[in-house]
């Protein structure tokens, strides 16, 4: 999967949780949850959906690592 495809999946997933948000405007190092007003439960739902779409297993213990777009691409990129 290309980075662009992965990004599209991430943006779709974020819009599913926060339809009013514009995830494509996120800077690579911006904290996603704070910027888009996503609470802990919604973020969990987002990551579960991400797992379904990409097949990448994301254990709860790693959730804290996925706080920016950059971090997500770094984490998921090699695994998809």
């Amino acid at each position: 999967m290309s980075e662009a495809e992965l990004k599209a999946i991430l943006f779709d997933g974020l819009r599913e949780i926060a339809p009013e948000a514009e995830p494509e405007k996120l800077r690579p190092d911006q904290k996603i949850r704070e910027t888009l007003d996503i609470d802990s439960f919604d973020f969990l739902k987002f990551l579960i959906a991400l797992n379904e779409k990409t097949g990448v297993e994301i254990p709860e213990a790693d959730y804290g690592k996925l706080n920016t777009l950059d971090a997500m691409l770094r984490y998921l990129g090699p695994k998809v």
Partner: protein
Amino acid sequence: MPFDSIHKDLQAMRVTPHLVGYDQTRATHSWEAVRAEIQGLRSGGLNLAHEAVDRHATGVRANHLALRWLGKDGSVRDLTYADMARGSARFANVLRTLGVAKGERVFALMGRIPELYLAALGTLKNVSVFCPLFSQFGPEPVFQRLSRGDAKVLVTTKALYEKKVAALRERLPALQFILLADAEDDLDVTVRSLPKLMAAASDEFVILPTSPEDMALLHFTSGTTGMPKGAVHVHQAALTHFATGKYVLDLHPEDIFWCTADPGWVTGTSYGIFAPFLHGVTNLVDEADFDAERWYRILEEQNVTVWYTAPTAIRRLMRIPGEPRTQHDLSALRLIHSVGEPLNPEAVVWGQRALGLPIHDNWWQTETGGIMIANYAAMDIRPGSMGKPLPGIDAAIVKRDEHGIEVITEAGVEGELALKPGWPSMFRAYLHDEARYAKCFVDGWYLSGDLAKRDADGYFWFVGRADDIIKTSGHMVGPFEVESALMEHAAVAEAGVIGKPDPLIGELVKAFVVIKPGHTASDELRMELIGFARKRLGPAVAPKEIAFIDSLPKTRSGKIMRRLLKARELGLPEGDLSTLEND
């Protein structure tokens, strides 16, 4: 009983708990004796901030670590009791300079940063009233609370101000000053830099005489009908905070205490600020939100001894396979408590197995100001039970009908959980709403709105809410507030909002929406409505799910039957339909 009792072995405990014999402590408890354990003001009366901070700052604990703050970015800030006394004095002087008087309301809308704690204590030193708001609220809940609470001052950050408050200013004529905790310079004469004001203020402040009955804290809580109501608490609440810090949290001088709740909710104020400071212990504050790895690391690295958290977080930790103790040294920890919603027995037992300690559930509400029913360090736990009433608190299961209140003495019978009024942290009013306050008290009982039962040995068990209030992630959400926001959308004719049971967060906010003619129920509209509600209400209040429905079930007098919406959602029996008007 499906879960065995968890027996406590006093001999095996590192620290002997304050409360050893429950019945005996109950029999000998007096609030006068608790009052004698704190100091009182030299100038007369009792001030919560004096007891929490100045009392220690002028004594042997002056250089004891009061607040250890862990920043999201890994930074650490330490404040001793002497630092806290000086910092809060500066804030009190800032308020005095701005002409903020006794009884006037100072709100806070910010994350968990040190300034929040100094603002809370400084406000109380000035005998003004502190009202914390959850920073995840959207503009509409913020507006409702600021306007209903007569906010004169709001302490916030640049980002939150711009995002949630700036556009509300015209609707809030009484709001005179905004103090920005992270602004280097004033924006204008009303939007000021807090660091600048603090730097110019003296770090000495003599607390004015404070009556124990002077208003100290204002906490908004949701109702079934109408907008949120402001529960008023007085300085005397210090006695409950102190007593529960002793009997329930079991705080001892060298403890490192971590309450994970945000001060925007009552737990984060009573136990995230006051109880640990009243006991002069080290209060740990983490700026970041829940993150399993981070939390285990904090417990380990900070040597947390007493931990007060919530079922939602515990259930998240339970999702991680394996044994946390093989990766983290949790040996400093000796006591774990939970509140927010009933803790399922599996979680209590999980604590015992995975963390080596059972989790102590307790029960209380915004209105009660402090823990009322609890499991105690030295008392056997019945997993799933909220425990027994605090010494000094009389609780009962009651039945209410048109004749009044009947106390149910028979064990195992469901009824409403009621408390005998008069404990120090009982709310003294719903601000500007005497009628609603009066309705909470019947025949000499405070009626909690929670349904529960008591077993033959005096343990209380939570059953559910008697009304439609939603408990999500441990927070109360009023359906009316959500319905009102949805109805502002051009496509929405009506909305009915319920709490849909969820295994992780207790209940999630779900809205049933009737759309206006000319609009089509579609996935696009559903997403648009979710986004619309999130923008107004913020993620803590906005619905997580929306379903379209042809009409809402209503009573003949036109009230939405949310109970019926919920029963249908869950496929449960619909119950008494005699008042149903249509469908």
